[in-house]
C-alpha cells in the first residue's frame, strides 16, 4: 500500500511537471467543447440558393420571397439561365437551384398543375436530405396558400390530417445538447486510454523500467500506480466538462450524477485496460500513438456520436457489442437528457463491468508475460 502511494506521488509530480499535460487537462476540454459542439452540428443554417425565375410573375416572386424570408435560406443569385445556375452549383458557390418555368403563374390560373424544379448539391447526403425537406415544406405551404386563395373559400378542399409534433427529451431539437455529452465521452476516453498508454510506454522508451524492475515493486503495484492518476484525472475531466456544459450550453442534467460517475468509473477501467494492453505490444510512444489512433477512430465513428447506432447495418451493431464507447455514449445521453435510473441502464452497466473485467485480465496477463 505504501509503495503504491510512493508511485502515485512520483506520477503526480511528473504529470504536473510535464509542460504539455496541464494544457491537455484544462485547455483541450474547453476548446473541444466550445469549438466542436458548435462546429459538429447537422443543423442547416445558411443554404445558398440560386433562383432561375423565368416566369417573373407575382406568384413566382412571392415563392422566392418565401425562401428568402426563411432563416435557413439565402438567395445568393438570381438569373434566367439554368446553365449558369448549374455552373455555380458545380463551383460549389450555391447549394441548391430553384427553377421556375415561364408558364408557372399561367398554369396555376388555368387550374393546371404548375411545376418547379429543385437541383440539390448532394455531396453531403445528409445535408442534401435536409435541404430537400426544408424546401419541400416551404413549397408545400405556399401551394396550400395558393389553393385557398384561388378557391376564395368557394370550394372546400379535401380534409387534411393535421400533425402536431412534440420532441421529447430535447424539445427545441437543440443539437448541442445532443453533441456535448458525446464529446465528453471522447475526452474521457482520450485521457483514459491514450494518456495512460503513453505514460506506461514512456517508462520503457526512456529505459526507466529497467531500474524499476530490480526494485521490490510488484507488477500490480506498478500498474495501479501508473493508471490511478489518469483514472482520477479523467473523472475530474468529466466533472469539469459537465460544468462547462451546464454553464455555457445549459445542458440538462436530468438523472443522477452519482450514477453517471459510477458508470464512468467502470468505463474508465475498461478503456485503461485497452491502454495497458496497447502499451504491452508497443515499445515506443510513436507505436502507441498509431495503435491508439486506430482503435479510437474506429470506436468513435461506430459509437453513434453523430449518427444513431440503430441506423447502422446489422454487422456494425454486432461490432458495437465490443465497443465500450457505444455503451458510454448511450448511457451519458440517457442519464443526462432522459433522466434514466440504474435499472434503465443496467444492461449497459453489466455489459461494461464484464467488458472491463475481461479486458483488465487480458491486459494484466499480457503485461506479466512481456515485462
Amino acid at each position, binding site marked *: 500500500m505504501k509503495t503504491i502511494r510512493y508511485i502515485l506521488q512520483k506520477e503526480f509530480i511528473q504529470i504536473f511537471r510535464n509542460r504539455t499535460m496541464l494544457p491537455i487537462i484544462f485547455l483541450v476540454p474547453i476548446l473541444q467543447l466550445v469549438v466542436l459542439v458548435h462546429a459538429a452540428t447537422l443543423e442547416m443554417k445558411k443554404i445558398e440558393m440560386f433562383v432561375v425565375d423565368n416566369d417573373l410573375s407575382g406568384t413566382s416572386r412571392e415563392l422566392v420571397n418565401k425562401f428568402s424570408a426563411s432563416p435557413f435560406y439565402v438567395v445568393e443569385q438570381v438569373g434566367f439561365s439554368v446553365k449558369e445556375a448549374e455552373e455555380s452549383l458545380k463551383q460549389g458557390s450555391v447549394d441548391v437551384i430553384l427553377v421556375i418555368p415561364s408558364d408557372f403563374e399561367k398554369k396555376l390560373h388555368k387550374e393546371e398543375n404548375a411545376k418547379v424544379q429543385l437541383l440539390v448539391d448532394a455531396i453531403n447526403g445528409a445535408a442534401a436530405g435536409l435541404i430537400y425537406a426544408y424546401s419541400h415544406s416551404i413549397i408545400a405551404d405556399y401551394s396550400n396558400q395558393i389553393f385557398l386563395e384561388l378557391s376564395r373559400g368557394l370550394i372546400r378542399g379535401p380534409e387534411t390530417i393535421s400533425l402536431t409534433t412534440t420532441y421529447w427529451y430535447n424539445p427545441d431539437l437543440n443539437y448541442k445538447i445532443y453533441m456535448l455529452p458525446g464529446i465528453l465521452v471522447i475526452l474521457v476516453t482520450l485521457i483514459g486510454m491514450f494518456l495512460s498508454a503513453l505514460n506506461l510506454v514512456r517508462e520503457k522508451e526512456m*529505459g526507466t523500467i529497467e*531500474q524499476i524492475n530490480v*526494485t*521490490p515493486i510488484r507488477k500490480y503495484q506498478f500498474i495501479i500506480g501508473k493508471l490511478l492518476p489518469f483514472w482520477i484525472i479523467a473523472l475530474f475531466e468529466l466533472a469539469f466538462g459537465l460544468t462547462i456544459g451546464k454553464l455555457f450550453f445549459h445542458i440538462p442534467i436530468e438523472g443522477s450524477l452519482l450514477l453517471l460517475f459510477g458508470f464512468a468509473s467502470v468505463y474508465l477501467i475498461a478503456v485503461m485496460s485497452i491502454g495497458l494492453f496497447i502499451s504491452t505490444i508497443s515499445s515506443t510512444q510513436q507505436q502507441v500513438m498509431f495503435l491508439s489512433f486506430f482503435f479510437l477512430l474506429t470506436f468513435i465513428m461506430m459509437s453513434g456520436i453523430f449518427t444513431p447506432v440503430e441506423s447502422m447495418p446489422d454487422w456494425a451493431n454486432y461490432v458495437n457489442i465490443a465497443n465500450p464507447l457505444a455503451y458510454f455514449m448511450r448511457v451519458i445521453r440517457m442519464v443526462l437528457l432522459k433522466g434514466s435510473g440504474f435499472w434503465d441502464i443496467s444492461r449497459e452497466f453489466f455489459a461494461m463491468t464484464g467488458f472491463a473485467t475481461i479486458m483488465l485480465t487480458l491486459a494484466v496477463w499480457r503485461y506479466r508475460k512481456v515485462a
Partner: protein
Amino acid sequence: MTAPAVWVENISKKFDRVKAVDRVSFAVQKGELFGIIGPDGAGKTTLIRILTTLLLPDEGKATVAGYDVISSYKKVRHLIGYMPGRFSLYQDLSVEENLEFYATVFGTTISENYELVRDIYKHLEPFKNRLAGKLSGGMKQKLALSCALIHKPELLFLDEPTTGVDAISRIEFWDMLKRLKKRGISIIVSTPYMDEALRCDRVALMQEGRFLDIDEPEKIIGKYDKKLYSIHTTEPYLLMENLRENVDIQSVIPFGDHVHFTTRKDVEIDPGDLQEALIAKGFKDIAVKIIKPGIEDCFMDLMNIEPQ
C-alpha cells in the same frame, strides 16, 4: 561457510540464433571487485541482466548471495543494487526526488543510509533541485550510483558504468568503487575498456558469449609467454602493412603511436636489425624495443587464439 556473492554454473541465453551467453561458469567471493571485460556484443549486459533477475537464462543455474536468481528473485532484488548501462533514472524528477523515490520503494529513507552514499552524493548536493535530465554525464553517473546504493545492497552490479565518461571521471569512479569495496560490498562491473581490468581484484575476459579466462589481472599478465615487440612510429598504418608481409611476424596490433607485434613460435627477431631494415625502407623516427606485456596485450592475444 557463507555462500559466495555470485555463483554461476553453465548459464546460457540465446536470442533468436545468436548465443549471447554460452555456458558461462564462475564465482565471485564476498567483498570482491570482479570485472567482466569484453568488446561490445560480447554478452556482458545479457549476463548482468540474468544475474539481476531481469532476464531468464535458457539453461544453467545462478545464485546471488546464496539465493537462486529464478526461484528467489524477490529476495535477490532486495539485496542488489543495479546500475544499467543506459541512464535510467527519471529525467523529469530532480536529483533529490530520484534518490528519495528509490529509497522509499525499498522501504528506507535517505537519512538512514546517508553515510553510505555521502562520498558520492556530496558532489551532487549543490544540484539537488536540478532535474536529473539536465545533469552532465559524470553527474548522472554519480546519481545513478547513489540510487543503486541507497538501500544498502550487499552486491552492486554495474553495467558499463564508465562508457561515455571522461578520463578524469573514470578514475574518480574507480576510486569510489574501491571505497565501496572496503565497506564489504561485492561489486560486479562490466567494461569494454581493457585498462580498467587492472583496477579489479579478478577479471573475466568475455568474447562471443564465453569467458576466455578468469584470473587476477597480474596473473593473466604472468601467463603471457611470448616475446612482445613495440615500435614507435609516426606512420602506424604503413608500418603495420609492412610488418604483416613479414612471415615471421604473427600478430600486429596498433597502440596509439606504437605498434605491438609478436613473432611466430621459436622465431626471434633482433630489434636492432629490424630497425635498420625499416629505416632502409624509408621509415623515419623508428624505435624497435622488446617490452613487457600489458593487460591489453594479454587480452588481444587471448582473443586472437580462442575463437578458432
